[in-house]
């Protein structure tokens, strides 16, 4: 058991902090306009990659750092603590990059991995469909093998950063004659191919960070198949588990920075002539949010430990995912309750702060839906950990 950072981990954390406070490399303020924001975010990821903070544990021959996985966690935690924005190629880094590394051939890895790390090429994932959400295996998008190519027709949804993506990791049905999980393959689709249409969708936060994707006779060369024909489901489950297993540690750091921010806002705003934070009920509510964030951290350490020592990301990552959503949603709702009427008092100076909390609250509602809903996570636990009989 090892709680404290090793000397080398501490040195790395110091190095990242120095980097983050360096002139010109300070974590960027993000423009609200999306195109401008993308430019800033790509530049930010490129700068972090050049410094060795992106893909630190990925193989060096493909542009990664070749370092132990724990180092990426140290880096991610420092970035989150400093309030740095999430890397814009998050889908490439968390989902498709790990899939390419695990299931891709060397040619694919050489071609696709380096520009994922540098944010030169943004990736999106084409998994969900309007009629295949939680029931992903029922997807209908078809990729018909035709000599040395596939012809794809269908529709995808919740495609994060779809309008900016160069490539899409797409799940499509390649075989109708086998059980539905087995007939799915993973294809790399060039988003500039004829027949690809992207329609941005606006989220409840007002941002258009995801899109609908329409595919009409899109031609993809055979060499863009990831893994073997019919491996798509296996790859998707691997990547989703990977996403769940490792995202929690930087996430809990981010939640902690939000909690600290909420505490300082509650300290400077007044209700009835007294700081909001002096109210014992407000204190207790914030303490409960703190407890959930801390427990998320502790539980993630225990599950990530298994991952870091070489084990696969197992079904216990579903517990982490549930705790993560719970902590985030509790925190966001708690802040609205604690700040209460101060959110409504019309002080023009407080508009940006209020907007931040409204957006944080609205965004938190997605936490129990994306990456497998809360109900899907419970099913995974019931099946794979508790071995309960299936319905």
């Amino acid at each position: 058991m090892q709680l404290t950072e090793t000397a080398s981990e501490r040195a790395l954390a110091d190095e990242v902090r120095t980097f983050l406070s360096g002139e010109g490399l300070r974590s960027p303020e993000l423009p609200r306009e999306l195109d401008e924001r993308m430019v800033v975010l790509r530049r930010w990821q490129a700068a972090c990659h050049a410094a060795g903070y992106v893909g630190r544990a990925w193989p060096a021959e493909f542009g990664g750092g070749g370092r132990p996985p724990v180092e990426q966690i140290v880096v991610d935690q420092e970035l989150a603590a400093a309030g740095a924005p999430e890397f814009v190629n998050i889908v490439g880094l968390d989902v498709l990059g790990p899939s390419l590394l695990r299931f891709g051939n060397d040619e694919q890895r050489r071609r696709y991995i380096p520009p994922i790390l540098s944010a030169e090429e943004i990736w999106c994932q084409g998994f969900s469909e309007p009629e295949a959400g939680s029931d992903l295996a029922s997807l209908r998008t078809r990729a018909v093998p035709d000599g040395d190519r596939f012809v794809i027709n269908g529709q995808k949804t919740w495609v994060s950063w779809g309008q900016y993506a160069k490539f899409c990791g797409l799940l499509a049905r390649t075989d109708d004659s086998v059980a539905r999980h087995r007939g799915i393959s993973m294809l790399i689709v060039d988003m500039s191919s004829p027949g690809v249409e992207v329609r941005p969708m606006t989220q409840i936060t007002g941002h258009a960070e995801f899109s609908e994707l329409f595919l009409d006779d899109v031609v993809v060369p055979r060499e863009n198949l990831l893994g073997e024909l019919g491996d798509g489901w296996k790859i998707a489950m691997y990547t989703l588990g990977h996403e769940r297993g490792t995202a929690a540690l930087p996430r809990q750091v981010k939640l902690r920075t939000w909690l600290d921010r909420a505490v300082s806002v509650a300290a400077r705003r007044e209700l009835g002539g007294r700081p909001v934070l002096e109210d014992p009920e407000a204190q207790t509510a914030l303490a409960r949010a703190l407890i959930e964030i801390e427990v998320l951290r502790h539980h993630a350490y225990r599950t990530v430990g298994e991952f870091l020592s070489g084990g696969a990301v197992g079904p216990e990552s579903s517990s982490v995912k549930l705790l993560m959503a719970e902590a985030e949603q509790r925190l966001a709702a708690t802040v609205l309750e604690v700040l209460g009427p101060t959110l409504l008092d019309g002080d023009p100076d407080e508009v940006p702060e209020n907007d931040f909390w409204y957006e944080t609250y609205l965004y938190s509602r997605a936490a129990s839906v994306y990456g497998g809903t809360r109900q899907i996570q419970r099913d995974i636990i019931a099946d794979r950990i508790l071995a309960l009989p299936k319905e």
Partner: protein
Amino acid sequence: MDLELSDEQVWLEESINTLLVRRWPAAEAAWQAGDAERMRLWESLVEFGLLAGAGSDLGAIELCLVARAVGGHLAAVPLLGSVAVRYALAPFAGELPDGLAALLSSDSRLSIGLLEPGGGWSTADTRARVQSDRLTGTKAAVEHATAVDHLAVVALVDGEPGLALVRSGSPGVELTPQSALDGTVPLSRVAFADAEVEAAVEPGLAEKILERLVSVAGLLAAAEATGAAAGIFEQARAYAAERRQFGRTIGSNQALRHLMADLHVRQASAWSTTLYAAAALDDGIPGARLTASVAKAYVARAAREVAHGAMQVFGGIAFTEEHPAHRFLRRIILREQQFGDAAHHERELGRILAAGAIKEGVAA
């Protein structure tokens, strides 16, 4: 940064479980255990080295592993106080008065006297006091008070909270049995009227020792509750996989599958936070006391939630005296109430959060 148990810790856990299987009745029958069974288990635990090792070879992690096993088997011996006090004193052995230093190499059974009638679990609520080596005051909910050799009593020494060691049967110590939800862990109100103090820790040193004592005692209570929660949960899981209604096993119903998935998350995360807080205490990480508060607060709610959910899975049968569910529930509630329940620790953490004292990680 990992929370994996070492091979030695895994071995310890397995050994204690084996010992409990051999030396203690099954959880279902544990409530019937008499003095003979308790003595037999106690002697085995002493022989195993729990008292000698507490605070030296055995850190809070190891002691929590033992406490979790104790909870899973619903064992009832005066272990919590005996190991918690030793754990709290051990690092300061060289600075202790003779009577307390001697305790570390003895087999003395111990109970902690902290709570007072009308007070809370904070040592700041202490009114009992030591004057001229005599203790006066009243402590409540002292467990196994009739079965222990010594009472470790939190009492004012020179006006500040200190720790006084009193022999259990000595003159001026009056025990009154209290009603208790878990009858296997008898509680007493203990009145001290000029009772002789064998040794006392003076303020200053006492502050460090009391902080460590309250933290580890809370974690041991949490670990035991986690063990009891895991015990009843596993029985409910097995039951749900077998019991049939409407022509199908009840565990195939989504309502129960999802309920049990949530309970799994609660008990697994409850153990993670207990283990983390124990490791923080062992490593002497700044803020370890606050992390112990986080763990105690969380487990207090989580263990009860698991017991309630498991009882719902069992249905009516869990409402019968014969069924063991209520035995687990009783132990869980007892350990929830001791050394600060969720409300106590949430208030405490909230106050500290407001005071800006935990700007960075509670225990990074």
